Protein backbone atom coordinates (compact mmCIF):
# COMPACT_ATOMS: atom_id res chain seq x y z
CA UNK A 1 0.00 0.00 0.00
CA UNK A 2 2.76 2.44 0.89
CA UNK A 3 4.46 1.67 -2.43
CA UNK A 4 1.19 2.36 -4.21
CA UNK A 5 1.05 5.90 -2.77
CA UNK A 6 4.64 6.53 -3.76
CA UNK A 7 4.19 5.38 -7.35
CA UNK A 8 0.88 7.18 -7.62
CA UNK A 9 2.45 10.43 -6.43
CA UNK A 10 5.17 10.18 -9.07
CA UNK A 11 2.72 9.35 -11.84
CA UNK A 12 0.24 12.08 -10.97
CA UNK A 13 3.08 14.61 -10.84
CA UNK A 14 4.13 13.74 -14.39
CA UNK A 15 0.53 13.82 -15.62
CA UNK A 16 0.10 17.23 -14.03
CA UNK A 17 3.22 18.56 -15.78
CA UNK A 18 2.01 17.27 -19.16
CA UNK A 19 -1.40 18.85 -18.58
CA UNK A 20 0.20 22.15 -17.51
CA UNK A 21 2.21 22.12 -20.73
CA UNK A 22 -1.02 21.70 -22.70
CA UNK A 23 -2.59 24.49 -20.63
CA UNK A 24 0.26 26.93 -21.32
CA UNK A 25 0.18 26.15 -25.05
CA UNK A 26 -3.61 26.50 -25.17
CA UNK A 27 -3.47 29.71 -23.14
CA UNK A 28 -1.02 31.23 -25.61
CA UNK A 29 -3.09 29.89 -28.48
CA UNK A 30 -6.27 31.39 -27.01
CA UNK A 31 -4.52 34.75 -26.61
CA UNK A 32 -3.79 34.82 -30.35
CA UNK A 33 -7.51 35.17 -31.00
CA UNK A 34 -7.32 32.45 -33.63
CA UNK A 35 -9.36 29.30 -34.01
CA UNK A 36 -7.50 26.03 -33.59
CA UNK A 37 -8.16 22.35 -34.38
CA UNK A 38 -11.42 23.41 -36.07
CA UNK A 39 -12.59 24.70 -32.70
CA UNK A 40 -14.06 28.18 -32.30
CA UNK A 41 -12.24 30.69 -30.11
CA UNK A 42 -14.51 30.21 -27.09
CA UNK A 43 -13.92 26.44 -27.25
CA UNK A 44 -10.13 26.91 -27.24
CA UNK A 45 -10.65 29.23 -24.26
CA UNK A 46 -12.77 26.63 -22.43
CA UNK A 47 -10.33 23.84 -23.29
CA UNK A 48 -7.57 25.95 -21.71
CA UNK A 49 -9.66 26.41 -18.56
CA UNK A 50 -10.78 22.80 -18.28
CA UNK A 51 -7.32 21.37 -18.91
CA UNK A 52 -6.05 23.71 -16.18
CA UNK A 53 -8.68 22.47 -13.72
CA UNK A 54 -7.77 18.88 -14.60
CA UNK A 55 -4.10 19.71 -13.97
CA UNK A 56 -5.13 21.04 -10.56
CA UNK A 57 -6.93 17.76 -9.81
CA UNK A 58 -3.78 15.77 -10.57
CA UNK A 59 -1.67 18.25 -8.62
CA UNK A 60 -3.92 17.81 -5.58
CA UNK A 61 -3.69 14.01 -5.96
CA UNK A 62 0.12 14.31 -6.25
CA UNK A 63 0.38 16.40 -3.08
CA UNK A 64 -2.16 14.47 -1.01
CA UNK A 65 -0.63 11.09 -1.86
CA UNK A 66 2.79 12.41 -0.82
CA UNK A 67 1.32 13.80 2.36
CA UNK A 68 0.12 10.34 3.35
CA UNK A 69 3.13 8.51 1.98
CA UNK A 70 5.23 7.14 4.85
CA UNK A 71 8.40 7.48 2.77
CA UNK A 72 8.06 11.12 1.73
CA UNK A 73 7.27 12.26 5.30
CA UNK A 74 5.80 15.59 4.26
CA UNK A 75 4.58 17.85 7.00
CA UNK A 76 1.47 19.94 6.46
CA UNK A 77 3.38 23.21 6.25
CA UNK A 78 5.65 21.73 3.56
CA UNK A 79 2.65 22.08 1.27
CA UNK A 80 2.65 25.88 1.49
CA UNK A 81 6.04 26.94 2.84
CA UNK A 82 8.74 26.38 0.18
CA UNK A 83 12.38 25.40 0.75
CA UNK A 84 11.84 24.15 4.32
CA UNK A 85 11.60 20.44 3.52
CA UNK A 86 13.81 17.66 4.82
CA UNK A 87 14.32 15.96 1.48
CA UNK A 88 16.17 17.90 -1.25
CA UNK A 89 14.77 21.20 0.11
CA UNK A 90 15.54 23.17 -3.07
CA UNK A 91 13.85 20.77 -5.48
CA UNK A 92 10.95 19.98 -3.18
CA UNK A 93 10.63 23.71 -2.45
CA UNK A 94 10.22 24.41 -6.17
CA UNK A 95 7.22 22.07 -6.09
CA UNK A 96 5.77 23.94 -3.11
CA UNK A 97 6.40 27.26 -4.88
CA UNK A 98 4.68 25.91 -8.00
CA UNK A 99 1.70 24.81 -5.90
CA UNK A 100 1.45 28.26 -4.29
CA UNK A 101 1.60 29.93 -7.70
CA UNK A 102 -1.03 27.53 -9.06
CA UNK A 103 -3.34 28.33 -6.14
CA UNK A 104 -2.92 32.06 -6.81
CA UNK A 105 -3.55 31.68 -10.54
CA UNK A 106 -6.59 29.43 -10.14
CA UNK A 107 -8.23 31.42 -7.34
CA UNK A 108 -7.82 34.73 -9.17
CA UNK A 109 -9.20 33.13 -12.33
CA UNK A 110 -12.27 31.85 -10.51
CA UNK A 111 -12.78 35.32 -8.98
CA UNK A 112 -11.92 37.12 -12.23
CA UNK A 113 -15.21 38.99 -12.41
CA UNK A 114 -14.80 40.27 -8.86
CA UNK A 115 -11.16 41.36 -8.86
CA UNK A 116 -11.16 42.92 -12.34
CA UNK A 117 -9.18 42.27 -15.48
CA UNK A 118 -6.00 44.10 -14.43
CA UNK A 119 -5.38 42.20 -11.21
CA UNK A 120 -6.36 38.94 -12.87
CA UNK A 121 -3.96 39.49 -15.77
CA UNK A 122 -1.12 40.47 -13.45
CA UNK A 123 -1.46 37.22 -11.49
CA UNK A 124 -2.08 35.16 -14.62
CA UNK A 125 1.33 36.19 -15.95
CA UNK A 126 2.79 34.14 -13.07
CA UNK A 127 1.95 31.09 -15.19
CA UNK A 128 5.16 31.82 -17.12
CA UNK A 129 7.01 31.38 -13.82
CA UNK A 130 4.88 28.51 -12.55
CA UNK A 131 5.49 26.23 -15.53
CA UNK A 132 9.34 26.24 -15.46
CA UNK A 133 9.21 25.88 -11.67
CA UNK A 134 7.04 22.78 -12.06
CA UNK A 135 9.34 21.40 -14.75
CA UNK A 136 12.49 21.89 -12.66
CA UNK A 137 10.76 20.37 -9.63
CA UNK A 138 9.95 17.28 -11.66
CA UNK A 139 13.49 16.90 -12.96
CA UNK A 140 15.18 17.72 -9.67
CA UNK A 141 12.98 16.20 -6.97
CA UNK A 142 11.48 13.41 -9.04
CA UNK A 143 12.77 9.96 -8.18
CA UNK A 144 12.62 9.17 -11.89
CA UNK A 145 15.10 11.91 -12.82
CA UNK A 146 17.63 9.43 -14.12
CA UNK A 147 15.20 7.71 -16.46
CA UNK A 148 15.03 8.24 -20.19
CA UNK A 149 11.24 8.47 -20.24
CA UNK A 150 11.02 11.34 -17.74
CA UNK A 151 13.66 13.31 -19.63
CA UNK A 152 11.93 12.55 -22.92
CA UNK A 153 8.56 13.75 -21.59
CA UNK A 154 10.18 16.83 -20.05
CA UNK A 155 12.01 17.73 -23.27
CA UNK A 156 8.82 17.35 -25.34
CA UNK A 157 7.09 19.67 -22.83
CA UNK A 158 9.95 22.18 -23.12
CA UNK A 159 9.75 22.04 -26.93
CA UNK A 160 5.98 22.64 -26.89
CA UNK A 161 6.14 25.61 -24.51
CA UNK A 162 9.21 27.11 -26.23
CA UNK A 163 7.49 26.88 -29.61
CA UNK A 164 4.35 28.54 -28.18
CA UNK A 165 6.35 31.35 -26.54
CA UNK A 166 8.38 32.00 -29.70
CA UNK A 167 5.14 32.11 -31.71
CA UNK A 168 3.74 34.52 -29.09
CA UNK A 169 6.67 36.89 -29.69
CA UNK A 170 6.35 36.98 -33.49
CA UNK A 171 4.62 40.04 -35.00
CA UNK A 172 2.01 37.89 -36.76
CA UNK A 173 0.88 36.23 -33.56
CA UNK A 174 -2.50 37.93 -33.24
CA UNK A 175 -5.45 37.58 -35.57
CA UNK A 176 -5.21 41.22 -36.59
CA UNK A 177 -1.50 42.08 -36.74
CA UNK A 178 -2.45 45.07 -38.88
CA UNK A 179 -4.17 46.63 -35.86
CA UNK A 180 -1.78 49.48 -35.20
CA UNK A 181 -0.08 49.72 -31.83
CA UNK A 182 -2.09 52.34 -29.96
CA UNK A 183 -0.20 55.59 -29.56
CA UNK A 184 -1.15 57.54 -26.47
CA UNK A 185 -0.09 61.13 -25.92
CA UNK A 186 2.39 61.65 -23.09
CA UNK A 187 -0.03 63.63 -20.93
CA UNK A 188 -2.65 60.85 -21.21
CA UNK A 189 -0.30 57.99 -20.20
CA UNK A 190 -1.48 57.87 -16.58
CA UNK A 191 -5.05 57.47 -17.84
CA UNK A 192 -4.01 54.72 -20.23
CA UNK A 193 -2.36 52.80 -17.42
CA UNK A 194 -5.61 52.77 -15.46
CA UNK A 195 -6.86 50.22 -17.94
Amino acid at each position, binding site marked *: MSDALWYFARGSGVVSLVLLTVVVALGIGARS*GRTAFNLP*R*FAVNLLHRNAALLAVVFLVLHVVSLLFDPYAQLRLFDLVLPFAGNYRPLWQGLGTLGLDLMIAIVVTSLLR*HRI*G*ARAWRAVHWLAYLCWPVALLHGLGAGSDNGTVWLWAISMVCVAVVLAAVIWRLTPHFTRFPQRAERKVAERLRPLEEVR
Partner: protein
Amino acid sequence: MTRLHIDWTACDGRGLCAELLPELLAEDDWGFPIARDGSPSPAVPGPLEPAAQRAVDRCPALALRLLRDTR
Protein backbone atom coordinates in the same frame (compact mmCIF):
# COMPACT_ATOMS: atom_id res chain seq x y z
CA MET B 1 -35.66 44.54 -20.51
CA THR B 2 -32.09 43.22 -20.32
CA ARG B 3 -29.43 44.98 -22.33
CA LEU B 4 -25.90 43.92 -23.24
CA HIS B 5 -23.39 46.62 -22.38
CA ILE B 6 -20.02 46.67 -24.16
CA ASP B 7 -17.22 48.49 -22.32
CA TRP B 8 -15.22 49.86 -25.25
CA THR B 9 -12.24 50.90 -23.15
CA ALA B 10 -11.84 47.28 -22.07
CA CYS B 11 -12.82 45.46 -25.29
CA ASP B 12 -9.85 43.96 -27.11
CA GLY B 13 -11.77 42.44 -30.00
CA ARG B 14 -10.92 38.81 -29.26
CA GLY B 15 -14.10 37.67 -30.94
CA LEU B 16 -15.47 35.19 -28.39
CA CYS B 17 -18.70 37.10 -27.82
CA ALA B 18 -19.69 37.15 -31.49
CA GLU B 19 -19.22 33.36 -31.55
CA LEU B 20 -21.30 32.79 -28.41
CA LEU B 21 -24.02 35.31 -29.28
CA PRO B 22 -24.24 35.43 -33.09
CA GLU B 23 -27.93 36.34 -32.88
CA LEU B 24 -27.06 39.74 -31.42
CA LEU B 25 -23.42 40.38 -32.28
CA ALA B 26 -21.34 40.38 -35.45
CA GLU B 27 -17.66 41.16 -35.93
CA ASP B 28 -16.51 44.26 -37.71
CA ASP B 29 -13.50 44.16 -40.05
CA TRP B 30 -11.16 44.49 -37.08
CA GLY B 31 -12.71 41.73 -34.99
CA PHE B 32 -14.59 44.04 -32.63
CA PRO B 33 -18.22 43.22 -31.87
CA ILE B 34 -21.05 45.27 -33.34
CA ALA B 35 -24.71 44.85 -32.46
CA ARG B 36 -26.76 43.55 -35.36
CA ASP B 37 -29.53 46.03 -34.52
CA GLY B 38 -27.04 48.91 -34.65
CA SER B 39 -27.69 50.03 -31.07
CA PRO B 40 -24.76 50.71 -28.68
CA SER B 41 -26.12 48.26 -26.09
CA PRO B 42 -28.47 45.79 -27.77
CA ALA B 43 -31.59 44.47 -26.05
CA VAL B 44 -31.34 40.79 -25.06
CA PRO B 45 -34.57 38.84 -25.61
CA GLY B 46 -35.44 36.41 -22.80
CA PRO B 47 -34.53 33.19 -24.62
CA LEU B 48 -31.08 34.56 -25.44
CA GLU B 49 -30.24 35.54 -21.87
CA PRO B 50 -28.35 32.32 -21.03
CA ALA B 51 -26.24 32.71 -24.19
CA ALA B 52 -25.65 36.38 -23.36
CA GLN B 53 -24.57 35.41 -19.83
CA ARG B 54 -22.15 32.88 -21.29
CA ALA B 55 -20.66 35.59 -23.51
CA VAL B 56 -20.29 37.84 -20.45
CA ASP B 57 -18.60 35.04 -18.49
CA ARG B 58 -16.17 34.08 -21.27
CA CYS B 59 -15.04 37.56 -22.38
CA PRO B 60 -11.24 37.51 -21.81
CA ALA B 61 -11.20 41.30 -21.28
CA LEU B 62 -14.26 41.35 -18.97
CA ALA B 63 -15.71 43.97 -21.30
CA LEU B 64 -19.32 42.73 -21.33
CA ARG B 65 -22.06 43.27 -18.80
CA LEU B 66 -25.76 42.51 -18.66
CA LEU B 67 -27.81 45.50 -17.58
CA ARG B 68 -31.05 44.31 -16.04
CA ASP B 69 -33.80 46.88 -15.95
CA THR B 70 -36.21 46.02 -13.18
CA ARG B 71 -39.01 48.16 -14.58
